[in-house]
């Protein structure tokens, strides 16, 4: 049965296929299919050339319009620029005119002030000159009177056989110059300035019995300059507070030290074995100060030999013999150039026991009348900062870690620096 159905199916398929083939054969002569290019363009009936021409014409119109607009705008811009230029030129001209007017006014004012000042100065000088001329006339008259009196006295003296009139106080310097060297006169050696060459002029009148010749009219009435009481010719003092110069510590007048507190009592350790130098401008000490100072650690003296020995051990003075201070900078807090004093804070590296630590030391500086610079200052510091263990005896007698380090130096200027 199933096979029968399969045969029937196959026969049906074959039948349908054959029927379709037969139908295609019958109709194939009447069916023609043609495919043409640009079939879609038949939908638009506009001519592209005409459209292009139209568009070109429109563009030409636009361009013409744009050109006209641009031309107008450029004209406007040109006009505005010209107007601005004119405005600026007129403003400059106005400024120039104002400046000229101001200059003319200042010139006039200055000329007036100058004229007034010159007139005032001329009047002052004229008055002073008048006074001087008056004084000169009086002096001349007095001198003439005195010469006449002395002449009369000199003429009268031989007749009386008596010594000359004792010199007045005014004459004393003149007579001293005319006097030959006496037992009190000093003569200077090779490096010294020879004695003044001022000698009294031979007198036109007869000499006095003492042989003292005096010309009343000679300018020798000027008193002879006295030497210093130490008899040396002292150079003038050229020291000035301003200017960079080098200073050298004077050890014999300097001391550095420390104050310490202990369980038993407080004590000071100090030494004068200090040396060094520095360079600075005292009127501007903050400008590149340079220098270094060193003290011999093994010469610090506290007054007790045993304590000194222990201190030297703590300081390792046999290994690090010097306590050093190197100047790094200076900050001025006050300055009085007239009094030659200043104060400030010196910054530097303090080296103790081979260990250097930067510190700031407040100091006061002053130039004394011997032109030596005294430097005093102090700061509180902990000795442990330099790795020094505070000394202690049996845990009962101990020194505090904090000590007061101080300096009292005097330095002398060695040379001025440019």
């Amino acid at each position: 049965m199933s096979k029968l159905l399969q045969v029937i199916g196959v026969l049906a398929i074959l039948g349908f296929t054959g029927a379709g083939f037969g139908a295609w054969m019958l109709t194939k002569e009447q069916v023609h299919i043609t495919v043409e290019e640009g079939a879609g363009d038949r939908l638009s009936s506009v001519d592209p050339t005409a459209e292009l021409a139209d568009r070109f014409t429109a563009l030409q119109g636009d361009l013409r319009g744009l050109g006209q607009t641009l031309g107008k705008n450029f004209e406007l811009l040109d006009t505005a620029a010209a107007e601005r230029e004119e405005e600026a030129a007129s403003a400059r001209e106005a400024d120039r005119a104002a400046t000229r007017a101001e200059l003319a006014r200042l010139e006039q004012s200055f000329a007036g002030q100058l004229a007034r000042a010159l007139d005032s100065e001329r009047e002052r000088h004229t008055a002073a000159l008048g006074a001087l001329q008056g004084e000169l006339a009086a002096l001349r008259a007095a001198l003439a009177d005195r010469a006449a009196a002395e002449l009369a006295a000199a003429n009268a003296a031989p007749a009386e056989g008596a010594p000359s009139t004792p010199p007045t106080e005014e004459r004393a310097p003149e007579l001293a110059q005319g006097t030959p060297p006496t037992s009190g006169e000093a003569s200077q050696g090779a490096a010294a300035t020879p004695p003044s060459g001022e000698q009294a002029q031979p007198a036109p009148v007869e000499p006095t019995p003492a042989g003292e010749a005096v010309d009343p009219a000679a300018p020798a009435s000027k008193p002879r300059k006295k030497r210093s009481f130490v008899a040396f010719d002292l150079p003038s003092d050229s020291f000035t507070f301003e200017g960079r110069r080098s200073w050298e510590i004077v050890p014999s007048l300097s001391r550095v030290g420390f104050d310490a507190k202990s369980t038993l009592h407080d004590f000071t350790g100090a030494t004068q074995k200090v040396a060094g130098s520095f360079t600075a401008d005292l009127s501007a000490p903050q400008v590149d100060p340079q220098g270094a100072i060193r003290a011999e650690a093994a010469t610090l003296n506290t007054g007790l030999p045993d304590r000194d020995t222990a201190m030297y051990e703590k300081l390792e003075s046999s290994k690090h013999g010097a306590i050093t201070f190197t100047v790094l900078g200076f900050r001025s807090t006050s300055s009085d150039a007239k009094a030659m004093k200043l104060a400030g804070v010196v910054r530097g590296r303090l080296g103790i026991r081979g260990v250097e630590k930067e510190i700031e030391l407040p100091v006061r500086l002053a130039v004394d009348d011997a032109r030596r610079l005294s430097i005093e200052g102090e700061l509180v510091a902990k000795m442990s900062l330099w790795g020094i263990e505070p000394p202690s005896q049996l845990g009962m007698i101990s020194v505090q870690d904090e000590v007061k380090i101080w300096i009292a130096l005097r330095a002398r200027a060695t040379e001025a620096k440019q």
Partner: protein
Amino acid sequence: MSARFSLMFGTFLSAASLFTSCIPSNVVAPTDRAVRVDAANAVWSKGGAADLSGYWSSRELSGPLASAVRRMHYWFEADGRFTGAALLEGPPLAFQVLSGLWSFDAEGQLLLGEDAEPARLEKSGEFLRLSGSDGVVVLEREELR
């Protein structure tokens, strides 16, 4: 117990105070830190011709002359002669030497040469002090070897 502790503590304090009082404080006062010359504390009396003889060197100079002079040396003879040398400020440092005769004026002031200003002369042990308008010079007697 408490009484015993108080007794011990009191004894300790007494001993400590006795011990500490044996070693006085030797802290230098800030005003005494600067070095002063020995002559600063000397007691001065008027000097005369008898005090001059010998060799003297300056120990301290003060006043305006100290800015010009570093050191001075004098040799005074009893017969009135003297010679001196001063190391003057430079640069360079230079010696100035002189010699002459010393005398005293009517007021008892020392004259080192006729044209020098008179100086007040004072003495104190081995020191002489000359004072004048230019300052003060403290001289210390030295032995010539």
